């Protein structure tokens, strides 16, 4: 979008001189926009540069070893996982979003919001519950053995299929929520226009509605796949080796943070190339709404179709949410008496406070980037924005090290400066404060906030902003009066995703939290680190429960 490169039509009732003055004021403001967003991108990019800087110290021996032994298998495993999760989240996420926004079937009003709930479930928690329930020693197989003797036909849950199923169930809400938001704002106009042009319902869906929602669906898919790539917890439960497990092996097994960062930088490159490829495939296509049309009136499903829809939604909800919550609840009850104490209030408060502050900060940052991205299309801005949203694909602990190296660099420089005046100076600036942690969240979750915001941006026609400008509305006012209202759905989705993700976040929180700032995720770590998985159910369940609050807010604000 380059408003300033397009000729302005002579305004009706505006005198040309005023229009020219208005125009140059715009240019100045555009340039002004670039400064904060490049600065912001710089802050986000620095920790990633630290990761890339690891190549300065080659680790030839470890690389040779990996190439000779496990690397090929790791890459195959990872690609298989990505392909499986991509198919899974697309089918489940888009399919269910379509059903709950565009159709009417028994239970739709419930599933509409309930299908978002698995978002609050950390992947490693579902993985642990699934492994416990479906493995050889679990209740299901035990029951089968008791009734039918030895069973060999039950698929092994600790396999590629098991990991893919778990990750699909945990990450489909990203696609579901973004597709849902797109379908909700898309209106009936697209569908009706397609139907009027003679397309059947399926054709209309695949040829008109789906392509229009592509930015949103892709944004959701990108988040799901970046989480899949960065995941360490869930794959560890299944002992499934991926690229990320190799990163941790290099770090914890070979004691080489360098090799780990080098591997991680390859992961980043891979994601960067994938994102750029998608952009160029999308090409010059634009996805604007022709007008702000009325929202869709749902299509009422009847008979078998209606029940099939209910069963599909119900099954996903059962497996991804109800079953693990019941199992967690069961475990939590056992430790309720011993583990809950006064500190829990403080832990809850910290979790919510950090989540809320990070959500506010990250959404604001992503909005700045998205506005800039829309108004400036020079290469520098594009590249900066692109790189700034890669942090999500990095395993959390590696990113946390990057953030820490940057922060402690600043701190150490500051300390050196202060000691020039006072040799005894021992204070610190950023390390060990909430600011450090918030910065880490900003870097890590920029992509999470940017995706929904940018995909809602993509659907705002430039003609609206053009019209506004013709009427003499300045850029800042345009943000307030046009963008913010039209982006409301996207901003809310972004804030919710960041809030829930931050509350689940573990490695960066562990590494950068100030003394005494324990959160629910830290509690989960404390227990799982010593193998007390069942006792970790209590904080995990609490995490899921408070994750529901923002989801309810979003649902209420976006009810159709």
């Amino acid at each position: 979008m380059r408003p300033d490169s397009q000729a302005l039509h002579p305004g009706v009732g505006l005198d040309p001189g005023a229009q020219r003055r208005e125009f140059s004021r715009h240019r100045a403001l555009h340039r002004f926009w670039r400064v904060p967003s490049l600065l912001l991108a710089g802050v986000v990019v620095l920790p990633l540069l630290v990761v890339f800087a690891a190549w300065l110290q080659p680790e030839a021996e470890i690389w040779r070893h990996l190439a000779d032994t496990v690397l090929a298998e790791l890459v195959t495993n990872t690609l298989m996982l990505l392909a499986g999760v991509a198919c899974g989240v697309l089918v489940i996420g888009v399919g269910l979003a379509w059903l709950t926004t565009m159709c009417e079937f028994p239970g739709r009003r419930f599933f509409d919001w309930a299908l978002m709930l698995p978002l609050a479930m950390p992947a490693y928690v579902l993985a642990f519950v699934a492994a416990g329930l479906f493995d050889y020693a679990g209740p299901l197989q035990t029951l089968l053995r008791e009734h039918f003797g030895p069973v060999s036909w039950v698929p092994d849950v600790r396999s590629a299929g098991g990991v893919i199923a778990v990750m699909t169930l945990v990450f489909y809400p990203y696609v579901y929520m973004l597709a849902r938001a797109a379908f909700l704002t898309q209106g009936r106009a697209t569908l009706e226009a397609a139907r009027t042009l003679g397309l059947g319902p399926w054709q209309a869906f695949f040829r008109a509605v789906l392509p229009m929602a592509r930015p949103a669906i892709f944004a959701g898919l990108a988040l799901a796949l970046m989480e899949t790539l960065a995941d360490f917890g869930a794959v560890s439960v299944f002992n499934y080796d991926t690229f990320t497990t190799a990163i941790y092996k290099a770090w914890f097994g070979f004691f080489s943070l360098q090799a780990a960062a080098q591997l991680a930088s390859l992961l980043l490159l891979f994601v960067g190339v994938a994102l750029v490829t998608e952009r160029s495939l999308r090409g010059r296509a634009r996805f604007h709404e022709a007008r702000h049309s009325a929202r869709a009136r749902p299509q009422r499903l009847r008979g078998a179709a209606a029940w099939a829809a209910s069963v599909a939604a119900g099954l996903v909800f059962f497996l991804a949410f109800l079953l693990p919550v019941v199992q967690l609840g069961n475990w939590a009850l056992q430790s309720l008496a011993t583990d809950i104490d006064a500190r829990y209030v403080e832990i809850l408060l910290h979790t919510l406070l950090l989540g809320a502050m990070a959500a506010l900060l990250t959404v604001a940052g992503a909005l700045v980037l998205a506005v800039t991205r829309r108004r400036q299309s020079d290469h520098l801005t594009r590249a900066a924005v692109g790189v700034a949203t890669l942090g999500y694909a990095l395993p959390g602990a590696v990113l946390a090290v990057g953030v820490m190296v940057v922060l402690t660099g600043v701190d150490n420089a500051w300390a050196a400066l202060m000691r020039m005046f006072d040799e005894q100076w021992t204070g610190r600036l950023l390390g060990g404060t909430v600011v450090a942690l918030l910065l880490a969240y900003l870097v890590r979750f920029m992509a999470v906030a940017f995706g929904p915001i940018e995909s809602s941006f993509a659907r705002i026609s430039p003609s609206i902003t053009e019209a506004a400008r013709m009427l003499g509305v300045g850029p800042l006012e345009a943000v307030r009066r046009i963008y913010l209202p039209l982006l409301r759905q996207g901003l809310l989705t972004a804030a919710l995703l960041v809030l829930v993700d931050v509350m689940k976040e573990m490695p960066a929180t562990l590494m950068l939290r100030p003394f005494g700032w324990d959160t629910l995720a830290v509690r989960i770590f404390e227990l799982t680190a010593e193998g007390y998985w069942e006792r970790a159910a209590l904080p995990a369940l609490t995490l899921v429960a408070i994750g529901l609050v923002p989801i309810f807010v979003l649902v209420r604000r976006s009810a159709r």
Partner: protein
Amino acid sequence: MRETYRKCLGLVAGLFLLTPAFAADEVVVYSSRTEELIKPLFDLYTKESGVPIRYVTDSGGPLLARLKAEGANTPADVLITVDAGNLWQAAESGLLQPVSSDVLDANVPAHLRDPQGQWYGLSLRARTIVYSTARVSPDELSSYEDLADVRWKGRVCLRSSKSVYNQSLVAMMIARLGPERAADVVKGWVNNLATAPFANDTRLMEAMAAGQCDVGIVNSYYFGRLQKERADVPLALFWPNQGEGDGVHVNVAGAGVTRHAGNVDGALKLIEWLSAPEAQRMFAGRNMEYPVNPEVDPNAELVQWGSFRQDPRNIADAGRLQAQAVMLMDRAGYR
């Protein structure tokens, strides 16, 4: 709306100014031993000595990275980890400083501490053989190496090679048997696996109790926990390698004074206190581990499993040979 914004801004600004204040005699600890196992000891120490302790917990790797990044400005005085490998690595990267203490030399046996005095073991984690009492007689068992024998084909359960406890076990095996023999043993284990390696020791034992396999290798305290939960669990521990000059593989949770500690004196006093009998009983007892201090008897629960001879080699080898062990396991196809 504007009011809300202002409040949020105020809050953020307030937190920014909330930099931690440090008391003068305070000791700051970075610990990968979890809060649950360490806080009661810190509380007791503060009560007895009046010295406040501030601590932060995380995994060993990230704590080391943190110490390294902070350099001379680190607030940490003491590093506590749950395995010898990370302690060795911390010493190797210059993150710890040697200290000499008669108290520690008396309380911690020589093979459980760094020869230069950079770190000291504080509790023992014995990694031993667990077997199904229904399908295996203890007479059939002898050593870790023996589990590589073909008669165990399809009957062995192992935890993932990514577990630091298995990495230490194999590293010490390299020290004991040499790399070739150790590689053969690991290959034999992999050939004898009944199922893919498990993510943790508890799951391994549950699978064994359900009949998926007959023998495996676990840390003794995980078995203790399972036994507490299910008194009738049809499993038992076996102490392997009990010949002269040999012994059960033990790892340590331990501590060292950081290179840039601001309070070396306080740090050393804390570690000395942790090695003394009163703290040893708590330190090891809370997690059914064995105390390092030979003066202290293990918990009553542990006594029923019988006593055993420990591997007498210095546990520092577990760190020195860890990378080699991981590579060996990769080559053997041990996932």
